[in-house]
C-alpha cells in the first residue's frame, strides 16, 4: 500500500489574513506611486475594502496577489488624474534634473555612517529619493518590475502598455537611477 500525502491545505483567505499579509504591500506600492500621504491612505483603504467585499471570488493566493497589484495600480492612476496639473508637473521632474539632483541633493548627507543600521537607513533614503524623482512613466514601471518583482508582461497589463514599452521604460528608469546614484557608487556609499 502506497500512502500518498494529501496536498497541504492553504489557510482560508479571511479579511484579517488579507489585512495582516497584504495591507502593508498595498500601502507601500501606493506610497511609491503617489506623492501625497492622504492619497496613499485613501488608496490603501479603498483597495482593502474592495478585497474584503470580493474575498469569496478569489480562487487562491496567487490570483489575489495579481488582482491586488492591478487594483492598487488602477486606484493610484485614478488618484493621480484627480490631481491638479501643476502637482503632476512637480512630481515629474525633468529627466536631466533627476541625474543632477541625485548628487546635488543627496551627497552632503552621505558621509560614512557610524554603524551599519545608520548606513542602511542612509542607503535606503538615497534610493527612495532617487526613485521619487523619476518621471511617473518610468517610476511606475520600475516600481512594479524591480521593486514589486512583477514579470514584464504583468507590468504591461497593470499599466495598460505594450511589452516593448515596458522594456523601454524600465531600461530608461534604470539608466536614470544609475546616473542619479553614480556619485554614491563612486564614493562606495551604496554597496
Amino acid at each position, binding site marked *: 500500500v502506497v500512502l500518498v500525502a494529501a496536498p497541504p491545505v492553504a489557510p482560508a483567505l479571511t479579511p484579517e489574513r488579507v489585512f495582516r499579509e497584504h495591507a*502593508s*504591500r498595498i*500601502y507601500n506600492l501606493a506610497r511609491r506611486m503617489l506623492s501625497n500621504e492622504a492619497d496613499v491612505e485613501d488608496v*490603501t483603504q479603498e483597495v482593502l475594502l474592495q478585497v474584503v467585499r470580493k474575498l469569496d471570488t478569489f480562487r487562491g493566493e496567487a490570483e489575489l496577489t495579481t488582482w491586488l497589484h492591478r487594483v492598487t495600480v488602477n486606484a493610484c492612476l485614478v488618484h493621480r488624474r484627480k490631481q491638479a496639473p501643476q502637482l503632476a508637473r512637480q512630481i515629474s521632474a525633468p529627466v536631466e534634473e533627476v541625474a543632477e539632483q541625485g548628487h546635488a541633493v543627496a551627497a552632503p548627507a552621505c558621509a560614512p555612517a557610524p554603524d551599519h543600521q545608520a548606513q542602511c537607513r542612509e542607503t535606503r533614503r538615497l*534610493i527612495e529619493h532617487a526613485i521619487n524623482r523619476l518621471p511617473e512613466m518610468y517610476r511606475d514601471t520600475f516600481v512594479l518590475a524591480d*521593486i514589486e518583482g512583477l514579470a514584464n508582461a504583468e507590468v504591461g497589463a497593470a499599466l495598460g502598455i505594450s511589452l516593448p514599452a515596458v*522594456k523601454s521604460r524600465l531600461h530608461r528608469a*534604470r539608466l536614470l537611477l544609475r546616473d542619479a546614484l553614480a556619485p554614491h557608487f563612486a564614493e562606495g556609499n551604496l554597496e
Partner: protein
Amino acid sequence: MTCREWQELLADLASGDLDAVQTRRCRAHLRRCGACGRDWADYQRVRRLARQLSEEPLPDALALRLQALILQAQVAF
C-alpha cells in the same frame, strides 16, 4: 556596434531575453570596454538595491482605522 548600441541591450541582457550569440558578444564587449563594464555593474547594482528595499510598516493610525473598517465591512456583508 557602438557602446551606445551595446548599452541599449542591457535590459534584455539583464532579463535574459538576448539569444546565446548576442549574450556572448554583449558580455565580451562589457569585459573589453572599461566604461561599459562599469556602467553594467552600476546598472546591476540599481536592480539589486531596488530588490533590497524594505517595506514601511503601516502608520499606526491607518492600521487601526483599516481594522475597524474591515470589521464593519464584514458585518455589512
